[in-house]
């Protein structure tokens, strides 16, 4: 049987150590769908990992991520690492890291929160823990239960 391999990428980003099962949410964060990319996107799910047992990996060619996107990945996959590849070499490598306050990345899950009522405010959360992330709404004081479902 012919073995299918994910080939190294020339330029782009490898998002590694994604929490198992979160790869499709990472694609959602990247805004990738079948219509809007011209380069290869590789998604590996349930790959053996020495550190965490199992992990997902996403490779995106010809794209580097901005800070807001990296912060969103930290919300759904706090152990993820980002490798920026330039000309087949790892040019930069870092772990995602949430700052102490998350602004305008997720909306509050409480439908009765004032931030969900057409007021001129951005949703803001205090980060009380990073892994797993524990976010408390600055306005209504509730802990956000379903982070991936409330990504903006």
């Amino acid at each position: 049987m012919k073995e299918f391999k994910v080939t190294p990428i020339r330029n782009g980003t490898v998002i590694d150590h994604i929490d198992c099962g979160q790869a499709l949410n990472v694609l959602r964060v990247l805004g990738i769908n079948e219509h809007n990319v011209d380069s290869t996107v590789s998604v590996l799910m349930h790959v053996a990992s020495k550190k965490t047992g199992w992990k997902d990996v996403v490779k995106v060619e010809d794209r580097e991520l901005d800070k807001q996107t990296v912060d969103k990945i930290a919300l759904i996959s706090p152990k993820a690492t980002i490798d920026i590849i330039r000309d087949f070499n790892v040019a930069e490598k870092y772990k995602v890291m949430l700052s102490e306050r998350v602004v305008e990345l997720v909306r509050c899950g409480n439908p009765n929160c004032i931030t969900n009522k057409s007021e001129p405010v951005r949703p803001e959360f205090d980060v009380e823990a990073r892994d797993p992330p524990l976010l408390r709404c600055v306005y209504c004081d509730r802990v956000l239960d379903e982070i991936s479902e409330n990504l903006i």
Partner: protein
Amino acid sequence: MNFKDMDVVSIRDFSRAQIEEILERSRAMLPYANGEKVTRALEGKILGNLFFEPSTRTRLSFESAANRLGAKVIDVSQTSTTSIIKGETLADTIRMVEAYSDVIVLRHPHEGAARLAAHFSRKPVINAGDGAGSHPTQTLLDLFTIQEELGAIEGMNVIILGDLKYGRTAHSLAEALTVFGAELTFVAPETLQMPKDTVEQVRRLGGNPRITDDIEGEISSADVLYITRIQQERFPDPAEYQKVAGAYRVDKAMLREAKKELIVMHPLPRIDEISPEVDETHHAKYFKQAFNGIPVRMALLTSVLGVDI
């Protein structure tokens, strides 16, 4: 200690030392609150009382507190008579009222409304209840009542009984009592027990609350029995409501085993959680508790306006 221009949004914004200072100032307000002494300390100041949700006690007590201090009150208590009905945002309403008053008191149906108001107003904002969120002045007057009646909060056994899941006063009270070193017991039917994140917060603050659905076994060791209203609309089945409400109704017979010093508290309004026969016992402190809203709110108003009395 300086509270000038401080917003009073959540009890969590206060340290224990700050709460103790507010309770101290509340005690100093007692002779002015009951009319024994007269002060015009806030003469020339205007309180903007914004109540976008029905309230009797809280609205009247802020108004009374302001009047006792010589301040004037302007108020909005019906959204139907304001621009809100035309679709004005709360942010715009607040910026308008900020221009008309020196301190804003806000009751609003949406959680986080007071934080938003504080964000848009340079004048101090006092949260008088935001949806199912915070009601910090209620918590302060509850703490004040326990301290006045029992002489201390630390080490007291406090039962919080009733609708602990949705009752807005129960959550912040539990946290504040823990900061003060009280021992807590949460008594409620399983479906209305204290939410997990409040229980976890109480534990993080060093508390070790007991959680039970049985009130009978708990009364004899309690110093405070704090009752909250079980709302009928939380039960799809009226028969189920009757059963639960009946099981937690406090009457004289239930208090037979109680310590002599036990105080019974309730944020009011009560429906039938407390039998009227309890009113005449020395345990009943809920009307005193309602009165305590005046000195506590007087202390807050003078403090955030930076006025000494």
